[in-house]
């Protein structure tokens, strides 16, 4: 049989145990989501700087489309204790990360090697509930799941209910991730997902099933919803803020809104699989991107909420130097509530419900039949 092991609570000396004898090898294999790093032709400027500064060669792969399929793919190897082919990966603070944590698949971080994180990370990303003391993860970026639409075909959107509007039959995109749609179902019903119970889940599922049965949903997407939206296959869809922002800067006529009922805020986190071959190199990169200069390069490209508040001034400084379209764009960026959200903005948003292994299975069994039936 296939054995899964429940992790024991990390011992005090777990960090020292893991890092003992580990050396920098000069190479790093980094798995990330598509369009999630600054790019210039075939180069990744921030990684290039890292390579020059630290002498570590990075092989960067857009290997992750979706937390579910990513975890499904690496799970067997991690369970067997073998190399997954990557030393660093970015996972959202959802179910799968929770599972990875409870199965002990991740390396505990040596915070003594993360001075930039300590110095520059926003207070709100430190010590999150799902990973106390950032024992295993630190954020890559944060983001919001809201609604994106094409104003050419869709009237102004303000509410979750627009995703249930029969006018857009067959032109609505939803996400395949169980927690993502669960949150939307609950928002639509006025339920706070962070405080929800089984009964709430079932109500939300019924609401979502109704949407599906009415033929409204074109497809349950992974990260490919954005492509479908850009091509016009869908007119209105659940969307991640930065993806839409990127498309808008490329000149696509799209809009992103945080509906009045609320929206989901999440954090995509860097973490090191415990079977990593080059964990020291991975740790080095984790800290490197917390330099405001590097974080600025990233945020200017990927357009999600940055965990480094100091970048805002740097962006504005860059805007001052730039001209024309670029200037306009950078100014917009620095002023955007989707990149630098205010406390009021954040108040409207909710995170994911934290699940343990029992509730996790129940939760998935309620929502998966909708997206994967």
């Amino acid at each position: 049989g296939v054995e899964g092991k429940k992790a024991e609570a990390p011992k005090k000396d777990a960090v020292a145990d893991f890092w003992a004898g580990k050396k920098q090898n000069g190479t790093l294999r980094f798995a990330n989501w598509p369009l999630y790093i600054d790019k210039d032709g075939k180069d990744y400027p921030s990684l290039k700087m890292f390579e020059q500064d630290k002498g570590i060669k990075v092989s960067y792969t857009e290997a992750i489309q979706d937390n579910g399929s990513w975890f499904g793919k690496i799970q067997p190897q991690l369970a067997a204790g073998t190399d997954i082919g990557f030393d660093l990966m970015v996972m959202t603070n959802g179910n799968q990360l929770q599972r990875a944590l409870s199965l002990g698949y991740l390396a505990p971080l040596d915070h003594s090697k993360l001075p930039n994180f300590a110095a520059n990370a926003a207070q709100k990303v430190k010590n999150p509930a799902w990973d106390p003391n950032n024992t295993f993860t630190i954020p890559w970026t944060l983001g919001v799941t809201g609604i994106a639409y094409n104003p050419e075909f869709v009237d102004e959107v303000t509410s979750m209910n627009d995703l249930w509007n029969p006018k857009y039959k067959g032109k609505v995109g939803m996400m395949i991730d169980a927690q993502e749609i669960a949150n939307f179902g609950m928002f639509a019903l006025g339920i706070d997902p962070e405080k929800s119970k089984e009964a709430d889940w079932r109500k939300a599922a019924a609401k979502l099933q109704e949407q599906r049965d009415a033929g409204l949903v074109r497809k349950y997407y992974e990260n490919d919803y954005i492509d479908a939206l850009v091509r016009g296959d869908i007119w209105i869809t659940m969307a991640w803020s930065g993806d839409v922002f990127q498309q808008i800067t490329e000149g696509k006529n799209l809009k992103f809104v945080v509906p009045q009922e609320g929206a989901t805020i999440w954090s995509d986190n860097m973490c090191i699989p415990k079977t990593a071959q080059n964990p020291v190199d991975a740790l080095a990169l984790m800290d490197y991107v917390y330099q405001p200069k590097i974080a600025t390069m990233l945020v200017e490209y990927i357009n999600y909420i940055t965990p480094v508040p100091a970048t805002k001034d740097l962006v504005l400084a860059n805007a001052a130097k730039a001209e024309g379209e670029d200037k306009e764009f950078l100014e917009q960026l620095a002023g955007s509530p989707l990149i630098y959200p205010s406390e009021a903005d954040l108040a409207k948003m909710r995170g994911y419900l934290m699940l343990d292994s029992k509730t996790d299975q129940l939760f998935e069994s309620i929502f998966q039949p909708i997206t994967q039936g």
Partner: protein
Amino acid sequence: MKRLTPYLLILPGGLWLAIFLVVPMVFMASVSTQEGNVVDGFAQTFNFANYTNTLALFQTQFLRSVGYGLAGTLIAIALAYPIAYWIAFKGGARKSTYLLLVLLPFFVSFVLRTVSWKFLLADEGIVLAPLKSLGVLPEDFHVLQTTVAVVGGLVYNYLPFMILPIYVALERVDPRVVEAAQDLYATRRDAFRKIVLPLSLPGVFAGVLMTFVPMTADYVNAGILGGPQNTMIGNIIQTKYLVNNDYPSAAALSFTLMAAMLVGIFAYAKALGTENVLEAAAR
């Protein structure tokens, strides 16, 4: 020594097939009756309920897959037969050229071809957009994420495996036999119906064998071209294995699928003669 030669020749390949085809099936059979989950682990409990549960849960997808497979196969026969016929009987000296033309598209990766269809059929893509702007089609008309798209994709991807065996069978029909029928007062239609068609049936059978199974078990077309209403059993199995890590249900479903297919095939092959089918499959 002479006696041993065939065994020595067959051994390496035979072992490969035995170890990596037969043994995994045994493992899969074993996994299919286990219980548990990734976090708590799996244990062998001979839980045959995995079969009944998954089947009950996914019978829609199961039946849908068989339905798509059947529809795709029938459409493929209808499309392939006239082509195979034309190449075999009217292709003349250029027979092999036409055959090559029919096969060339398949030098492009299966996935890439399917992606190319997704691109072509996009709602505002190069086929539909002009029709919509002319008002021929309504704004919300779409092909992607419909049954038409999925079955169309299946047919597109497996058509050559239908054309080839039918062509081979037709090619073997002696044109003089057709002439003999005409000489015996058969019209062209009768000659086709009574002579050519029956003689080409083995090719059609071989084609069915080579298309029905892979079509039914496909998940790439439904994945790329289909929507929530088009999920096939392959998608379920793939998701259960590779996303949910729900190995027991996945194995139970795979086993059910394979058993259904193999029972069908073997009954079918028995009726036709295994050598025959193998021969056809090799082309």
